[in-house]
């Protein structure tokens, strides 16, 4: 039993070693995804390209522009003469924001009246727009306080008032990478193992070698287990790879237990391997398998809350998300890495994954028969 399983595993390993393309996918795809997510999929806003329309041209208006520049959120990349030019620059994506200071701004400030300015934001990406919106107001308010200080001749600290000191837990610097990278580990684990196991089995069907295998005394369970063993190792290698780059390159801190993380990753593998085996039982060609995998992956990734929080979804989708195993793994992995929590907190998720894993595995294994029909 064990000997035959290992025979299959050894053969599968040879396929992997001989196939350069698959090897490349296995080891570089996660790294590529990591750098893409770590850099490109970030909602951190710094140095947003901004144009200025200064119709006022007073020392006061120049001071305001300087305040925006100094905030670090905005890079003033150009001055424009009229609103049309500004609109075109936003349309073209040359700039993402625009500051409009009308004539009379300096006068109003000098006279101690409330001065109005306009701030244009490219809202195509709502996440970015939210941050920019807040930042633009913040800079304006700070400028307002400065005016008050000057008029009253006192420092803001000496005035009565309430100051809120927000403390951002778990991710104090609010870096997107800290949120994205743990999620990415779960996703790599999920995508790669489903894809690799499905393809490994379907390839044998496509090439006709499965027929020869089926007439040997190998039992279906030995075949399945033997075939997935090498991919389990690949999956763990990838997890460690992504984790290492996350920690050493992106500076993501791991607050919880690494061994608990790996243990629960193994539990999660049951589910993704099971899905892979299931896919292989419905697909006849590698192309079909890829299609089925993508059809399942895309909704999974969104419903699981990889990009957007589940709480922000409509109730119907929230309910649906309970059926997505990736959801539980995301909570687990973010919990362990960002919050440093342990089993006592993650119990619900762990139980959910045990149930999913067992059901999917049994289902996939019973569908897998040593017959051609």
């Amino acid at each position, binding site marked *: 039993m064990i000997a035959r399983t290992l025979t299959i595993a050894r053969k599968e390993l*040879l396929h992997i070693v001989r196939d350069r393309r698959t090897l490349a996918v296995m080891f570089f795809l996660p790294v590529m995804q990591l750098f893409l997510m770590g850099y490109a999929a970030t909602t951190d806003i710094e140095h947003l390209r901004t144009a200025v329309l200064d119709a006022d041209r007073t020392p006061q208006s120049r001071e305001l522009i300087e305040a925006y520049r100094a905030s670090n959120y905005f890079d003033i990349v150009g001055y424009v003469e009229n609103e049309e030019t500004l609109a075109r620059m936003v349309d073209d994506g040359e700039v993402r924001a625009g500051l409009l200071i009308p004539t009379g701004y300096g006068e109003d400030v000098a006279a101690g009246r409330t001065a109005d300015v306009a701030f244009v934001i490219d809202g195509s990406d709502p996440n970015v727009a939210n941050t920019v919106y807040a930042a633009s107001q913040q800079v304006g308010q700070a400028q307002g306080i400065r005016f008050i200080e000057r008029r009253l001749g006192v420092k803001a600290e000496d005035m009565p008032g309430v100051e809120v000191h927000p403390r951002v837990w778990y991710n104090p610097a609010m870096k997107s990478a800290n949120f994205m990278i743990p999620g990415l580990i779960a996703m790599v684990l999920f995508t790669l193992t489903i894809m690799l196991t499905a393809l490994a089995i379907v390839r044998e069907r496509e090439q006709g070698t499965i027929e020869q295998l*089926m*007439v*040997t005394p190998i039992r279906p369970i030995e075949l399945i287990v033997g075939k997935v063993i090498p991919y389990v190792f690949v999956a763990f290698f990838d997890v460690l790879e992504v984790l290492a780059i996350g920690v050493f390159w992106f500076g993501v801190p791991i607050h919880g237990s690494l061994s608990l993380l790996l243990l629960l990753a193994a539990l999660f593998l049951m589910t993704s391997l099971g899905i892979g085996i299931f896919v292989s039982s419905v697909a006849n060609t590698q192309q079909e398998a890829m299609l089925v995998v993508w059809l399942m992956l895309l909704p999974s990734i969104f419903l699981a809350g990889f990009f957007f929080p589940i709480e922000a979804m409509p109730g119907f989708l929230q309910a649906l998300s309970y059926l997505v195993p990736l959801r539980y793994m995301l909570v687990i992995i973010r919990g362990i890495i960002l919050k440093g929590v342990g089993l006592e907190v993650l119990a619900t998720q762990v139980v959910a994954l045990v149930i999913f894993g067992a059901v999917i595995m049994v289902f996939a294994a019973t569908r897998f028969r040593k017959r051609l029909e």
Partner: protein
Amino acid sequence: MTFDGLRQAPSVKRQASNVTWGSSTVNDYAVEVFNLIKKFGDFTAVNGVTFNIRRGEIFGFLGPNGAGKTTTIRMLLGLLRPTGGQATVLGYDIVHQAEEIRKHIGYMSQRFSLYQDLTVSENLDFYGRTYGVRGGRLQERKRFVIEMAGLQGRERELTRNLSGGWKQRLALGAAILHEPEMLFLDEPTAGVDPISRRAFWDLLYRLAEDGTTIFVTTHYMDEAEHCQDLAFIHNGRIIAQGSPEEIKLHKMQGQVLEIDCTQPDVAITVLRQMGLFDEVALYGALIHVVAEGIAEHKPSIAQALAEVGVQVRAMDIIAPSLEDVFIANVRNNAD
């Protein structure tokens, strides 16, 4: 041997197969097939075939493309579930005891199905181990198989780089590593050059001499002559069976006249237009005409051909080849 036992309910039959024919010594037949049927939806691929294979013989299963050869083999190995009928292989029921069957047989599927990205040696290791052949015995069997297939010195070559003939012999080697009692070979020589085919059949003879029962499908008629027993399958039905000699003797109605002439294509048209013959067919450059009492027709044939300017070089009554028989039977079957 009758099939009465097989007609009973499956549970009774299984019991019977254990008691009566379960051990390999009791029964002369390695394979017994009774009224086996396979339907794919509305389409009947195998339509009630019945045949027996004696232990130790080379049994040829002949038929054109799509006749149902592969489907029959797949049912015998438990890869497809029969729609109807019964069969046993080495005394084991094909539906309920497929796993037992698999331990004792070797199979070469129609499509080459060793791993192209593995070396010769790795493929043999793999298949040996799946059958539980390992250690010293594996080394010994591998050496035997490699020597038999003439693959010495190529052990480390990737299978992908072998030519057709080598691949075929390697696949046979992989199928016999575990010394199976019986071999199922599905068109093992398709697409292989004549010299490699010859070499392959020599291997089959050696195996048969050592007592291995061989079930081989082919559509090469010359290969059929090498078999001890034959069954012709056409459109899912067996239309003739027996030894090559029996088939030629009994299954053929009429005699065969072989004509060597100029413009064979013109000649064939003329002969067919005469409407007197059961069969007029072209074999290479020679024409075969089949009819009862063909000798009487020789003068009229000569005259008809002369009228259209065809020169007859030779015209003789010959012993029918299997191909003649096959074609005659296909025609009778269609009637």
